[in-house]
């Protein structure tokens, strides 16, 4: 049996693979074979290291040497110098981006790790169905601390000093919210956890509840202690069966262990949590609509004030916080406000969890400190754009947010900067778009979503969005007029100004933001009836370049509607009257002979 004493890890992530990392691996293997070292040193292909901008990456164990931008030709030097003579190849070493010094031993340093897990600290680490594993990770010690040695006002002070802001999207200071609910006078108060995560492509809250449900329960109890509530409610959508199941297990275990229920930890404090199911209406993520839905009424928002802190569930003072907000609380109590506020930017503290989706290589759940740039997220964590295409925009904030373009790639991400850039933090969905995405179609997609999800209570949202959507459909079908662009803007502003709740007030954001950032693309649709990205089917037609066509018949054989004709080895043609613009011929052609016009 071979006993390897050294490992060479070659990154096999998509980015590095594109720059010949497989050849690098082969070169290592054959060279080690030549030296007779194949039994001592193992060469492995790994997943993505996340610093794709500096790829291909090679890491050598056990000395934790981190080489970047390695070419297949560099392999000989690494083997001769590092492996044989034990001298590190300095010019290939990863350089610290701040000091620009080569990093000799990457162990223990997180130089290339841009992510810090706070809210996700236990996700993927503990068994979510075993309360003892949570307790082993300091679980419920923050609650114990608060109940035995801290007054509610002291706890609220810590949360306020930490600078934690609501992670559901609005960014309201959490400590202030708790204080307002604490000040309200009533015989009964409630703590509500908003787990009605509805943005398309967002799954942060689901992941927290599935991976670490106790952190939310613990925080809700802490919140109950602070505001003077003995009842907590989790409003979660029925579409999250696994999260619900794990929450139920967690609640039962916590009761069994005496961490929920009466006289918690012998302090006389009572607190229990119940689950309430939502039917998946987007508007129920809005706190007043959520409360109405929990009361068994229609999930419609109502005018604020009164805020839930004064008059919420059953007319009693209610504190509503999002799942991720709660997940941060125990750590803040345990490690202190100062520690937490040392992470992030001036007005946005801590980290934010994002669900990275769309045309990006490493789709995933990430947690990054506030103030990180989009460029770092996309290229250093996300592994870059799929298929080597060009970055176009990132949609943040879901249907209420907007698009961030190339010019915002280096803007530090926090609540205020995103608002200033015409988007918003939102709950953390981040959809990456490339040059094959038509921005008018994107705006139309989000409008379709809000149209479906509008509760219909107020006119601007119910009818305004319908009209807005109609105009967008017209434009994407090539029937738009230049004056439609002004109409879009005017109507959007009216809807924003006159809608009742957050859903309506923000629903035109995707339209306004794409109009601002991609005006040329809208113009192309309405003036020359063309879709530059080639996504709007009505505006696209496929033709075959006679010169390039080899007559391989591949397109002919794959066309589902028989729109392509032509002789074998002779040029082929597309009958525009039959073509349904499915794009199969374009995808299948190996000679780039199919053109999109």
């Amino acid at each position, binding site marked *: 049996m071979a006993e*390897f004493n050294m*490992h060479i*890890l070659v*990154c*096999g992530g998509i980015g590095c693979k594109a720059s010949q990392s497989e050849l690098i691996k082969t070169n290592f293997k054959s060279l080690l074979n030549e030296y007779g070292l194949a039994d001592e040193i193992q060469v*492995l*292909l*790994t*997943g*993505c*290291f*996340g610093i794709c901008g500096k790829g291909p990456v090679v890491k050598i164990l056990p000395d934790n040497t981190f080489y970047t931008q390695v070419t297949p030709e560099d392999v000989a030097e690494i083997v001769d110098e590092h492996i044989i003579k034990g001298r590190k190849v300095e010019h290939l070493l990863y350089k610290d981006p701040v000091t620009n010094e080569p990093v000799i031993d990457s162990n223990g340093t997180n130089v290339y*790790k*841009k*992510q*810090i*897990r706070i809210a*996700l*600290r*236990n*996700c*993927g*680490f*503990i*068994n*979510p169905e*075993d309360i003892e*594993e949570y*307790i*082993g*990770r*300091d*679980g*419920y*010690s923050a609650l*114990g601390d608060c109940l*035995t040695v801290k007054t509610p006002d002291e706890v609220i002070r810590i949360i306020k000093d930490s600078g934690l802001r609501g992670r559901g999207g609005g960014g309201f200071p959490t400590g202030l919210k708790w204080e307002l609910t604490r000040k309200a006078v009533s015989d009964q108060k409630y703590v509500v956890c908003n787990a009605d995560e509805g943005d398309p492509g967002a*799954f942060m809250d*689901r992941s927290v509840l*599935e*991976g*670490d449900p106790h952190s939310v329960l613990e925080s809700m109890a802490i919140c109950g202690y602070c505001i003077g509530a003995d009842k907590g409610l989790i409003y979660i959508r029925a579409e*999250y069966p*696994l*999260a619900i199941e794990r929450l139920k297990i967690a609640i039962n275990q916590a009761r*069994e*262990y*005496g*961490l929920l229920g009466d006289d918690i*930890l*012998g302090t006389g404090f009572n607190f229990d949590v119940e689950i309430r199911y939502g039917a998946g209406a987007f508007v129920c993520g809005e706190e007043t609509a959520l409360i109405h839905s929990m009361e068994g009424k229609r999930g419609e928002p109502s005018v604020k004030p009164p805020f839930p802190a004064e008059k919420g569930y059953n007319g009693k003072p209610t504190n509503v916080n999002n799942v991720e907000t709660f997940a941060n609380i125990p750590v803040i109590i*345990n*490690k202190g406000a100062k520690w937490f506020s040392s992470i992030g930017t001036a007005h946005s503290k801590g980290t934010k969890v994002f669900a990275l989706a769309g045309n990006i*290589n*490493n*789709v*995933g*759940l*990430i*947690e990054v400190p506030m103030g990180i740039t989009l460029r770092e997220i996309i290229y250093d964590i996300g592994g870059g754009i799929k298929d080597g295409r060009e970055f176009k925009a990132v949609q943040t904030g879901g249907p209420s947010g907007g698009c961030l373009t190339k010019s915002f790639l280096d803007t530090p991400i926090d609540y205020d900067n995103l608002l200033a850039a015409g988007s918003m933090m939102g709950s953390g969905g981040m959809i990456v778009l490339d040059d094959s995405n038509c921005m008018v179609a994107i705006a139309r997609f989000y409008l379709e979503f809000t149209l479906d999800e509008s509760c219909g209570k107020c006119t601007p949202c119910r009818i305004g969005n319908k009209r807005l959507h109609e105009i967008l459909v017209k434009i994407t079908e090539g029937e738009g007029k230049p004056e439609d662009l002004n109409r879009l803007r005017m109507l959007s502003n009216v809807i924003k100004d006159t809608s009742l709740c957050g859903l309506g007030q923000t629903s035109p954001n995707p339209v306004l933001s794409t109009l601002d950032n991609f005006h040329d693309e809208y113009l192309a649709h309405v003036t020359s009836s063309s879709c530059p990205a080639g996504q709007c089917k009505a505006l696209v037609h496929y033709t075959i370049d006679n010169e390039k066509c080899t007559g391989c018949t591949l397109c002919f054989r794959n066309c589902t509607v028989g729109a392509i004709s032509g002789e074998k080895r002779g040029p082929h043609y597309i009958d525009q009257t039959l073509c349904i613009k499915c794009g199969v011929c374009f995808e299948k052609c190996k000679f780039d002979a199919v053109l999109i016009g």
Partner: protein
Amino acid sequence: MNKIKNRADLRKLQSEVQSKIRLREDVNHPGNVVQIKVSMSTCGIASGAKETMNFFTSELNHQGIDALVTQTGCMGYCYAEPTIELTIPGALPVVYGFVNRTKALEIIEKHIKLNEMVDGIIPVTYSTIEI
């Protein structure tokens, strides 16, 4: 389980759990075992994490290898599901991505039995705060 009646009880349980984990990871302790954590959140399960977990349990059992197979939440590498974390006593945990039956068997045969890593390791791209 007796109820945790006060803060001292909670601390006691916490240190019990922690020392249990330390023992499990202590290379010199006879009770230490190979640990496999399977990322079982919705995204993992949708990509076949349940089958992977069942396979590990039955195959390790079948081969008479003492191991602790548990489930955990999302590790964040949704693009590479199913993902697992393997800890051999005395060694640092290693994360593998795209672990289907074939990969799982390779991991058992090579990494668990011969202590030889195999292709498909996912480098950890984040740091988790110290608890």
